């Protein structure tokens, strides 16, 4: 094998252009203090909304108000989707709040299947609030616990900055297909929250890279704009159209924007000198 590597290397020596280059102009860790602090405030506000709105949502379920519970499902979830990069740091809670049926061996029938999607399954697929009380209580307790833990957390800068891309990876890998909210088909609400959560991070660090990498900033902003423009076509008075209204053409536009944002934002940590 050594022989092969040696010979191969010599064969391609002519074409080999090894040009290590710095990721970007120096960004000192201190430069990130402001953006991270601001992000923590942003997350805090959204978590408070999550706790309040989850209370209203789960109260509706426990009161047996099916219509109200259905209506509150998608907007309540958005508060979780927007803070997901931080929420995911607690995998136990992320699992119990946001796992999907396929994450469990017995799918919908699995006792471990709890959280938003378990309630979504009951409300939209079984069209009933029956038997959901225990799941409602559990979700409420989980989001309160999440709020507590995140408030006490020192935000790791690389997780925050990496979160911009992580949100896009989520959309690209499992959401663009419409499998996330498979019972309610309110996926576009999730999209909106994921994009807003990602854009928030990007906007916070944008001043640190704008001067040296204007083309990158313009390209990423352009793709966020494309997403906003595409999603706005599906805006309704209450929120968003159901996923099945999304045309094949618009799905393709969104997929390309998500893939491109995921590629570009994957360099954000490096551009900011983070590992």
């Amino acid at each position, binding site marked *: *094998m050594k*022989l*092969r*590597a040696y*010979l*191969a*290397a*010599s*064969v*391609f020596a*002519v*074409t*080999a*252009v*090894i*040009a*290590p*280059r*710095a*990721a970007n102009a120096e960004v000192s860790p201190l430069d990130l203090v402001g953006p991270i602090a601001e992000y923590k405030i942003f997350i805090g506000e959204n978590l408070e909304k999550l706790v309040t709105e989850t209370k209203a949502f789960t109260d509706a379920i426990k009161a047996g108000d099916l219509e109200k519970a259905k209506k509150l499902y998608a907007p309540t979830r958005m508060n979780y989707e927007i803070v997901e990069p931080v929420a995911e740091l607690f995998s136990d809670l992320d699992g119990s709040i946001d796992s999907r049926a396929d994450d469990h061996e017995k799918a919908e029938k699995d006792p471990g299947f709890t959280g938003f999607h378990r309630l979504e399954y009951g409300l939209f697929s079984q069209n009933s609030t029956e038997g959901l009380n225990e799941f409602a209580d559990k979700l409420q307790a989980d989001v309160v616990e999440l709020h507590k833990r995140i408030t006490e957390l020192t935000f790791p800068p690389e997780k925050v900055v990496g979160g911009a891309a992580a949100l896009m990876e989520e959309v690209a890998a499992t959401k663009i297909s419409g499998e996330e909210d498979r019972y309610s088909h309110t996926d576009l609400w999730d999209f909106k929250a994921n994009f807003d959560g990602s854009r928030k991070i990007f906007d916070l660090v944008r001043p640190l890279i704008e001067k040296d990498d204007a083309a990158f900033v313009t390209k990423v902003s352009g*793709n966020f704009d494309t997403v906003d423009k595409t999603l706005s076509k599906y805006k309704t008075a209450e929120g968003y159209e159901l996923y099945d209204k999304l045309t094949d053409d618009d799905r*393709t*536009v969104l*997929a*390309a*924007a998500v*893939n*491109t944002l*995921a*590629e570009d934002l*994957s*360099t954000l*940590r*490096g*551009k900011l*000198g*983070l*590992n």
Partner: protein
Amino acid sequence: MTEETNTKAFITSRRSLLLGVGAAGGAALAAGMSGAQAAENNGEQVTDAPLSDKMLEQQPFHGQYQSGIVTPRPAAGMIASFRVLANTPADVERLFRTLSERIAFLMKGGTPPALDDKLPPADNGILGPIVLPDNLTMTVSLGASFFDQRDWLLPHKPARLSRMKAFTNDALDQSLCYGDLSLQISSNTPDTNIHALRDILKNLPDLMVLRWKQEGSVPVLPRSPDGTHQSARNFLGFRDGSANPDASSTALMDRIVWVQGIGDEPVWARNGTYQAVRIIRNFVERWDRTPLGEQERIIGRLKPTGAPFGGHHETQVPDYPKDPEGTVTPLDAHIRLANNRTEAAEANLILRRPFNYSNGVSKSGQLEQGLLFICYQADLEKGFIAVQTKLNGEPLEEYIKPIGGGFFFTLPGVVDANDFLGRTLLEAAGHTPTNSKS
């Protein structure tokens, strides 16, 4: 040393190295040792990479035609179909230029640039730090929708390019059909194809979205002592492509494969060709339970040799005029329907370049496998569409079910470093390439 002599030196030493190993293996066998013991004695480890002396095989990227059409089919192939988001002439140019640059690099091989390790690496690395060509070809073709959805390209659509219509035996899964652009990727190993596909996806996320892909393989054969070649077998166990036209004959390829850009075909399309892709599921369990004689009558060839009935070699031409009733070769045998060897049938010749595919298990617990059929022709209507129409209703249909695919127009070749894929089309549409590097 030039790259070429270097390459030769490499291949020579690799070959002798392999011969050495081969001789040792032979000696071990002669001494009555088992294969496992022999491996142990050679100091090989379980996870050692399998060795190949073909990694430096290279096909030309530059030329009148794209590679991967008359290029002898290697062991691994793939079709990937994309939606294209480039709508303006400038974006389409960027798409074509980027494809050309990436394909030129991947087919030649080399060392990807090293980036700061805080950034994602430029290359996916699955072939190691140095990308070897491994006989890679990447062939770019455009679907009818590519032209239909762009007003400025519509007048320049190749005359025979259409959206694939379902034939009588088809059960098309829409998620496995059509596409704005197809990439045929073939090389010696599936890993080289996957490396190339991932490179394209990474470099063009804003202009191309993957819709479907199908990988396939071709069973390899030992070298025959007399140097003769045989057609590879498909998953029905029959030799496939025995009647393929001779791809080394320029005159034949000019007539059968290459669009001449005359008559109603646009001039820009000269040296392109039509690509027909079909994902044809084979019901192999049922086929394997079918008597050999019936299998042979359905295909029209003898299974062991591939020869026509009464013949000894697969290249022999069946004498249908002597067999008008079909007593030797049934009138509805696959090969007789596809090509009845009359002068008229000469107009319907196609160049086949298929791969076998195997995807998993169906809901019914049967193998999901079959043929990734690919063929090229200068006239799609007289070629694949006419041939498949003749095959409609054939007895073989009991055992096969086409489920996907599409029709595409394969772009002319990239003649030199200043050229790029699709340049003649863009120029025909009145777009002067802008960001020319020259």
